[in-house]
């Protein structure tokens, strides 16, 4: 089935975006990235020297995965904008996954700083993919300032709690004119499938794979889950009924 995933005019064959955080080694990461089938992977730029040979960027180069720099660890709009600009110079890409975190305990986005940074970066020519809370109003504001996608959390980063408010995700999908990427909170394959069933265009995850006992195996599970969820969304699920409805004919006549 030809069902490409398009962000800002760029087409991707995979709807699974990976993160690199939490991986025990570069070899484990590489095996997981290959098993996931991802074509786009986000890397934290705040504490990465891009010129050192043998680092995580080499893994992405070798596997042919496009790098999406992120601003993880930034608490203010100013820090995030600066980090994005440094990443653009170092990696020669104007794409950025924008993260502005409110506090270390929850790692929830700071909506005020996020919107401010998003606007500044869009004005400066960046393709901005913001990590946001699952607030439909904030998602709309981010789209209005020109973000190329919105990336609401399912639950806090690294929590593995899945999608805590599926209805909000549906509301965001329903109104969005840009791709919605479920970012953060995925614990296992069914969470990723649910995100796609809710209408998300893609799923972004890291810990669920990198901290799994068998990262490559979990990455493969996520690849299938994203594909399955996407197919189910396109197939159109049946309405929910309170009582049973037999699938085989119970009367004298077939019900074809």
């Amino acid at each position, binding site marked *: 089935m030809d069902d490409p995933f398009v962000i800002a005019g760029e087409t991707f064959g995979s709807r699974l975006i990976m993160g690199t955080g939490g991986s025990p080694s570069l*070899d484990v990461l590489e095996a997981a990235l290959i098993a996931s089938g991802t074509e786009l992977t986000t890397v934290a730029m705040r504490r990465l020297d891009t010129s050192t040979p*043998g680092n995580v960027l080499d893994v992405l180069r070798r596997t042919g995965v496009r790098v999406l720099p992120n601003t993880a660890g930034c608490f203010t709009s100013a820090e995030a904008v600066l980090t994005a600009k440094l990443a653009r110079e170092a990696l020669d890409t104007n794409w950025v996954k924008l993260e502005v975190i409110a506090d270390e305990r929850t790692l929830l986005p700071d909506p005020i700083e996020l919107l401010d940074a998003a606007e500044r970066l869009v004005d400066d020519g960046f393709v901005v993919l913001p990590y946001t809370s699952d607030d439909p109003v904030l998602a709309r504001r981010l789209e209005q300032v020109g973000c190329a996608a919105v990336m609401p959390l399912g639950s806090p980063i690294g929590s593995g709690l899945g999608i805590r408010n599926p209805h909000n995700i549906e509301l965001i999908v329903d109104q969005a004119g840009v791709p919605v990427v479920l970012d953060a909170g995925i614990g296992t394959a069914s969470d990723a499938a649910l995100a796609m069933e809710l209408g998300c265009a893609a799923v972004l995850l890291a810990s669920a794979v990198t901290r*799994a006992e068998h990262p490559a195996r979990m990455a493969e599970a996520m690849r299938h889950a994203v594909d399955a969820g996407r197919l189910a969304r396109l197939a159109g699920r049946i309405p929910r009924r309170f009582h049973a409805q037999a699938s085989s004919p119970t009367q004298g006549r077939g019900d074809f």
Partner: protein
Amino acid sequence: MPAKGAPRVSNDPSDVLVVGGGVIGLSIAWRAAQQGLSVTVVDASMAGRASHAAAGMLAPITETKPTEEALLRLGLEGQRLWPDFAAELTAASGMEIGYRTQGTLAVALDNDDKADLDRLAKILAGFGIDADALTSRETRQLEPMLSPDVRSGLLVPSDHSVEPRLLTEALRVAAQRAGATIEQRELTSLAATKPSTTVLAAGCWSRALARTVGIDLDVRPVKGQVLRLHDAGGRFLTRTVRGVVNGSSIYLVPRGDGEVVLGATQEELGHDTTVTAGGVWELLRDARALLPGVTELTFVEAISGLRPMTRDNTPIIKRAAEDLIVATGHGRNGVLLAPLTAERVVAELIGVTA
């Protein structure tokens, strides 16, 4: 043939040039000299040398990750050599090396961290290793300075520690007493060195040196910031304590002289060795959550070291060319694996030069 004007030892086939004067290079030099080989160590004393910053944990068990069974097995093999290695080195050098056998206590600060610790116990059990799971109260009986917030613990008596700076000095003395020569100078190329065999043990600097003879080594520096504190009373901690605080790992290693080493960050910043405000703050913040009294200790030093990391976290110990043996990429485990590395490299040297 040696290059013209190159530093030259002799044509004796038992000549060995060890590049790197950290714990790996010096352990190899000592053991090789004991076997009667003619050994020269070239020691550049680089800023950021891992042996100078390392805490010296001999702790493969509490270090275990689910994907790293091979590294655990190697670490356990290395750990078994340590008691004899320590005793022999102390005798050979006449120096103390701060070898401590009080064990390691891994602690969890809250229920989320406990889930991680329980997972470690389960993984260890899967590898056939028992560790004692402790309640909050049992954990704090072992180390009363731990915060009442501590939720649980895991005691691993066989995870020990040593003081890497004393170890380095003792190894220098023992290597020299065994007949090795140690030269203080920086080598920028391996091309000009032509003894019968070169042993490359230059940590994260090995990559650039290997390239000078056309060999690719996938070793990269990973910076670790470490604090040295001093406990005048000497009663702050009995054994190594490691913990996960809101997802980040820290450790505190006590020494016999009251020193407490607190580490460590993990940063992919090339050969940068700066100490940052954020690094110091994060270490103290997390340590204080585990041990509120830590801020009463005397601040002695903040330093960073460069771990030589490989892509799979296991070291590279192999013959890379006819006249070149590589011993690097020990990552977080250089001190732990020094005796084992020396044993393997010397076996390789003797096998060829005998």
